[in-house]
């Protein structure tokens, strides 16, 4: 009975290893094959991100800041004008 188990172990580990080694080879192969797609995707994603982040946030903050500063200045002027 134990001999049967050993036979099964040899076959089983053989199949598991060869299956996953083949899978390794195929993953590497497909990664090379599909590299142009991946590159394109990444460059698109890379191009999108800064385009979204920079121009939107910067003017918003600018506008707010100028508004706050000008409000402060006008308030100060109004006060100093009264005194």
């Amino acid at each position: 009975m134990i001999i049967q188990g050993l036979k099964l172990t040899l076959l089983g580990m053989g199949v598991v290893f060869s299956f996953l080694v083949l899978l390794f080879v195929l993953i590497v192969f497909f990664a090379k094959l599909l590299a142009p797609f991946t590159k394109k995707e990444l460059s698109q994603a890379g191009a999108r991100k800064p385009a979204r982040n920079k121009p939107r946030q910067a003017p918003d903050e600018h506008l707010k800041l100028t508004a706050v500063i000008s409000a402060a200045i006008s308030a100060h002027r109004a006060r100093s004008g009264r005194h």
Partner: protein
Amino acid sequence: MCRKRALCVILCFAALLLLMGSPVQAADTGAQAADQEAVLLPPIFEMAANFVRSTGLFNFLFPETGHFFDGIGQFVMIGIGILLLYLAINKKFEPLLLVPIGFGAILVNTPVAGMADPGGVLYYIYTIGIKTGVFPLLIFMGVGAMTDFGPLLANPKTVLLGAAAQVGIFITLIGALFLSEFVPGIHFDLFDAASIGIIGGADGPTAIFLSSQLSPHLVGPIAVAAYSYMALVPMIQPPIMRALTTKNERKIRMTQLRPVGKVEKIFFPLVVLGLCVLLLPSAAPLIGFFMFGNLMRECGVVERLSQTAQNAMINIVTILLGLGVGAQLSAAQFLNLSTLGILLLGSIAFSIGTASGILMVKLMNLFLKTKINPLIGSAGVSAVPMAARVSQKLGMEADPQNHLLMHAMGPNVAGVIGSAVAAGVLLTLKSLVI
């Protein structure tokens, strides 16, 4: 006077009713009379005695089978059900599975109710979902929809760690045969041994699927062992991992993973399925459902199906699977030496799987320029994502800046594929045996 008259009227009315009743009975045909006789209840004392005889308490003490230990056995099994509930609720041991399993164990051991006998609700849940292998496969589909193969695709070398950790399955198989050869009272045939070995795959659905196909009478103990040890991964693995690695090895930093494209991720499930179709069709149910779930996730056009597979459906099936497995925890099937053997072998299986994954990294490091941290080797025993978290924790212990989680997810998901492949090989036993 008035009261007497009223009494008379009532008596007359009662007499009239009796008189009316008897001619109706007399007019009935023979069959109807027999029906009515069946409905008639026995005298009150006999009724009370019958009722007492149908209580759970009476049946625990004096079971129908006449064997005293059958009744006590059911009582003990209810205790085990409560223990499982305690572990799930208080200790947070795989609660999603152990709550339904524990409750199922209590229900199935309720005397008289016969919920797991033909006609009982648990019988149908088990027969429809587990005996056929449908539930574990649906769960596997949900797991596929939840799995991100990105870390594996970014570092394909780790696929070998998923293979190495399956050594535990086969060593345990041999161990089971050993036990049945040398320990009196334990008898496992080759099918049983294969089902016990798969506990080492640390993958609940795979273990339930394989044992339901090869040795259905062991489904209960095997599922309980598999899920209990998966819950115990954070306790079983660290001592082995520390023993097999030096501090310097644990400090090895791993380079950041490259980003993986969407197209690659869509191709991957199809590639694995293709390999399976060509080399190991017996693993097609497991790998097929796993990869189907993953394709739904990655293809991006069936978001609704993917969400259902990984949420609503996996939850529904988990409830039913748990109850069905619990239904297999009857005293006759659980309270014997074999169960102890299975629990013992299960812990050995996990330990060997952990060790072989780590040793495989050390072997690979002899040839590689960029070294791999051996701590991620232990994640090769599926148990997603618990095993990967253990790797992360031990890595942080050695070097607080060392984040291994994503690196460990690679061998972790490779382990799921590895154990499905191993299960596929063991399934061919059915056709191999002469």
